[in-house]
């Protein structure tokens, strides 16, 4: 009992000592900080005073920036120290920082008037902009847009003169065998090395976009039914919407598929592919034997050794268990023998086209049979 009381006394005493020690610590730290602050402040004011107009304005500006950075650092330290600084100290020190900045600004305007001029002119411009924006909205908008757009148009002007030169659009076709090379030979206007592709509303079609002559930047697909699309590696992303009973063979950086069902995707992708509002999607690795595939990977900077085709994220399924909306294509269903016509990137002469279209139905039926199995 007594022992316990003594122990209690001892402990409280220890606590008290600790508290006092802490108080002393903060006092000491505050004093130390004050001292350090004054040393740095002395150095900075000294440097400001040393700025003279004998040197060139650009050097002065540089020096001013350096000093300003030091002041900012000091201010940062002060904010950190506010935990233990008494409020009087805080006030005094922040006033001192402000006076330093003021002094520096005065010196700067005195010694490097050019700096002041450009600074002012910029301010005037923005405030002008501001008032314009507030008064005549549309006018100010056009000024901002034109000023910002002029910077880029120089670099990509040629590409936008005629979008047909840079985009292959295949729209509203039925029972057709469409190849990028026949498209290229029929429209001689395409001279670019890289193109974008848009496919929409194709039914019962085979689309072969494999080519050594041209590379594809991005593919946007919408509304394909009972069709097969074969593509070499693509420079950026592939986006598929509203498709049904199709086979896609594609390599890309990003792959997204929305509101589609009964699809088989032979895929090479270096990030996680995603599905959204989809059912019955099957993924398989990109094993298509295209001639010169390695070189294509290299040209569009796609890592051939990294394939996340099996790491699918389903945006409608946020649970631990596997999503019911997709699965991997069973090994035995993965196509080993690809129809030659599908991989052929030879140029087609126009009179051959009819033959090809007949042929395509065969291929489509063959491939679709695989899906429906």
């Amino acid at each position, binding site marked *: 009992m007594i022992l316990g009381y003594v122990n209690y006394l001892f402990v409280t005493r220890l606590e008290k000592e600790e508290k006092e020690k802490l108080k002393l610590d903060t006092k000491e730290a505050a004093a130390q900080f004050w001292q350090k602050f004054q040393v740095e402040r002395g150095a900075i004011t000294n440097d400001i005073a040393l700025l003279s107009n004998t040197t060139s304005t650009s050097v002065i500006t540089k020096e001013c920036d350096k000093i300003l950075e030091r002041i900012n650092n000091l201010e940062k330290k002060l904010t950190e120290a506010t935990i233990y600084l008494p409020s009087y100290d805080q006030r005094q020190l922040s006033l001192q920082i402000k006076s330093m900045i003021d002094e520096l600004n005065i010196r700067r305007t005195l010694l490097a008037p050019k700096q002041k001029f450009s600074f002012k002119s910029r301010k005037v411009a923005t405030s002008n902009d501001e008032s314009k924006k507030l008064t005549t909205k549309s006018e100010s*908008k056009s000024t*901002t*847009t034109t000023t910002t757009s002029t910077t*880029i148009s120089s670099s990509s002007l040629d590409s936008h003169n005629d979008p047909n030169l840079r985009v292959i659009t295949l729209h509203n076709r039925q029972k057709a065998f469409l190849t990028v090379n026949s498209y290229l030979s029929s429209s001689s206007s395409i001279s670019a090395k890289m193109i974008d592709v*848009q496919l929409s509303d194709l039914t019962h079609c085979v689309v072969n976009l494999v080519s050594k002559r041209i590379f594809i930047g*991005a593919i946007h697909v919408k509304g394909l039914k009972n069709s097969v699309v074969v593509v070499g590696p693509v420079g950026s992303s592939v*986006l598929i*919407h509203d498709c049904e009973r199709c086979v896609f063979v594609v390599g890309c950086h990003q792959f997204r598929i929305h509101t589609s069902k009964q699809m088989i995707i032979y895929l090479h992708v270096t990030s*996680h592919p995603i599905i959204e509002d989809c059912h019955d999607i099957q993924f398989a690795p990109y094993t298509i034997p295209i001639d010169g595939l390695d070189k294509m990977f290299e040209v569009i900077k796609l890592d051939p050794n990294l394939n996340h085709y099996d790491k699918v994220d389903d945006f409608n399924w946020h649970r631990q268990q596997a999503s019911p909306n997709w699965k991997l294509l069973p090994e035995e269903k993965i196509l080993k023998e690809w129809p030659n016509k599908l991989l052929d990137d030879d140029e087609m002469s126009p009179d051959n086209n009819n033959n090809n279209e007949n042929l395509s139905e065969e291929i489509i039926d063959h491939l679709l049979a695989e899906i429906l199995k």
Partner: protein
Amino acid sequence: MGLLSILRKIRQREKEIRLLVLGLDNAGKTTILKRLNGEPIDKLSPTLGFNIETLEHNGYKLHVFDVGGQKSIRSYWRNYFEQTDGVIWVVDSADRMRIGDCSKELHALLQEERLAGASLLVFANKQDLPGALTDQEIRKGLQLDEIVTHHWAIQACSAVTGENLLVGMDWIVGDIASRIYLLD
């Protein structure tokens, strides 16, 4: 706590800017953010959720929220509206088929009360792609000229090459800062 320290606290806060990066999926939001922050961009997966980056720009501390653009998670955008100083709307300039959707989403977003007063920067991204629409075409497609409720600007850019990203950031930070200066 003296008046001065209160003022200082306010000033500290004002040096911070909160930006929200939104847009349809596949626009390149995360790529822009990572590119600005100097991180690798070649293996980015579509955003399931959101990313936050803190950047320094012209002496301002930018807290940038990049929220995934997939249709099923767009309804979560509103969780990030509070205290937003500026919205960066990113457009896939090569996505000609969804420009109408993109416009609809943008105009619906601008109705949001909590975003009143926020500056709007439209990035016409992916200018490195051959099929990219120009900023002027995007401007028409998104009907930007109808916007009278927000300060806005459009900037053609490419997150892959980094082209013109900083020009756009300069504009939006400058525009927000000019409002904050008014309080000084």
